[in-house]
């Protein structure tokens, strides 16, 4: 468990790694990189399974803006800690905005879970199918 918290949302498993900066619109939460296979999809409110965070170090700032705007994912699941995303969340908490739990999960564990499945993430670090 990287950043503990409780959350609920529908599973959105991105098909490729993404840079939040240049990849996600910080106001709407939509994927704006036309080269990304999930172009146009919104990550807002989802339990977001991220195959990797790449690219710009400005992604912390986009994470903060998503939390400030209320368009962040409900929770993030990823295989390896990514400090750039996490920092945006820590700063959001310092400034009194919302947070977004981040769990360390091998994404292959989600292979049997269809896209859109309603999931609950618990502060103990469990992912439960609802």
């Amino acid at each position, binding site marked *: 468990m990287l950043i503990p918290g409780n959350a609920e949302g529908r599973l959105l498993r991105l098909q490729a790694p993404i840079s939040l900066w240049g990849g996600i619109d910080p106001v709407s939460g939509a994927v704006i990189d036309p080269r990304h296979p999930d172009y146009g999809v919104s990550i807002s409110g989802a339990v977001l399974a991220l195959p990797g965070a790449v690219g710009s*170090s400005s992604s912390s700032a986009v994470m903060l803006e998503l939390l400030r705007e209320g368009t962040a994912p409900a929770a993030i699941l990823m295989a390896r800690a990514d400090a750039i995303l996490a920092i945006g969340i820590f700063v959001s908490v310092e400034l009194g905005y919302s947070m977004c739990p981040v769990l360390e999960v091998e994404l292959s564990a989600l292979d049997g879970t269809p896209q859109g499945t309603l999931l609950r993430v618990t502060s103990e670090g469990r992912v439960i199918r609802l």
Partner: protein
Amino acid sequence: MTLHLTTEERALLAGDHGEAVSLAMRILVSAAELLGAQALVRITSAHIDGCLYHGDGGVEFAEKLVATGGRVVVPTTLNVGALDLLHPDTVRADPSKLAMARRQMDAYVSMGAEPTFTCAPYQIGHQPAFGEQVAWGESNAIAFANSVLGARTERYGDFLDACCALAGRAPLHGLHIEQNRQATVVVDTTNVPDALKGQDVFYPVLGSWLGLEVGREVSVIIGLPSTVSRDQLKALGASAASTGAVALFHVVGVTPEAPSLDAVVSKTQSVDRIKLTADMVKGALKRLSTTNTVERIDAVAVGSPHFSITEFEVLLTLVRGRHMAIPFYACTARATLQELEVRGDLLQLQEAGVEIVTDTCVVVTPILRESEGVLMTNSGKFAHYAPSNTGYEVVYGSLEDCVESAATGLVARTEAIWSW
């Protein structure tokens, strides 16, 4: 594995030295714990990416640090902001956003950071020495500092870079530690013709492929000529850090940690070996352009990372005596602009229709005149980010191609170099 803090660090965290550094330490400690660091490491410089406006949260954070007495405690440079402070008409955004962007840049300057406003501080005299521990933000600068200079930084994003600068420390993890700097991927470029490897246009393509292929792994490239230039390495790293999370690559016989393959390849982890083929290179080249069918372009942008003085020398020889038919933007540091003025080159560039953008660049803030169109560039990083950040289609080509195309507004690209 727990994080050990010194007595001094505990005092900083507790607020004995003010609220700003205490806040910085809280974030630093959270990050260090998340990353599994067992200690913090003292740094000798910081490069802050956080002065670029992405929304009001970034302004609020910076101004909170200022209001609570925040000061940088190590030499600190600033990345691009969202404004060209020297050419105020360059950026086209509504006045309220421009005002917030200005506040964000000003906040970091008032904390004692140097107003360099460049993504390439390493080419205006800010070069950490081999082995120095630093905390740098901005993906291309991180790749350059680690790979080309042999300094040691992890990938520091917005906010954490500022926290490191205020605390003078960074989490001791990842690339700060020698053993993590060894390569787990060997890329063999011996199949690529020497003629292609001698061209600048090859390096963003190689970088773009590398980032997609290796993600965040440390790679070592063999088979590149020992004459590969700093500008070429800069372009390679910037491109690799756009498509992947590349923070360090080695080039055998060129970069300082790789006098030989043996010196840098991991002895403890499994190592992937990849022979670069023509198909891989052509695939990466194709991917850098979002369209390969257009005949007309609307603008050219170069200088991501910011143009160096040596890149301007080449540009000058290409544009001298000609006039660009469409907008031609060259993004650079204000320090480099000053050098152009001293040399007397600025006027010649302007007469040819080259518009110099300083302190910022065309993909981080609205500069292009229309909301859509076709942009041509020689930068792998511009090619990667322009479609999402500007709405423009992108055509990738060499600097020579960019100038030829801008002179008429019609795409002119030399394709022969890619055939083998």
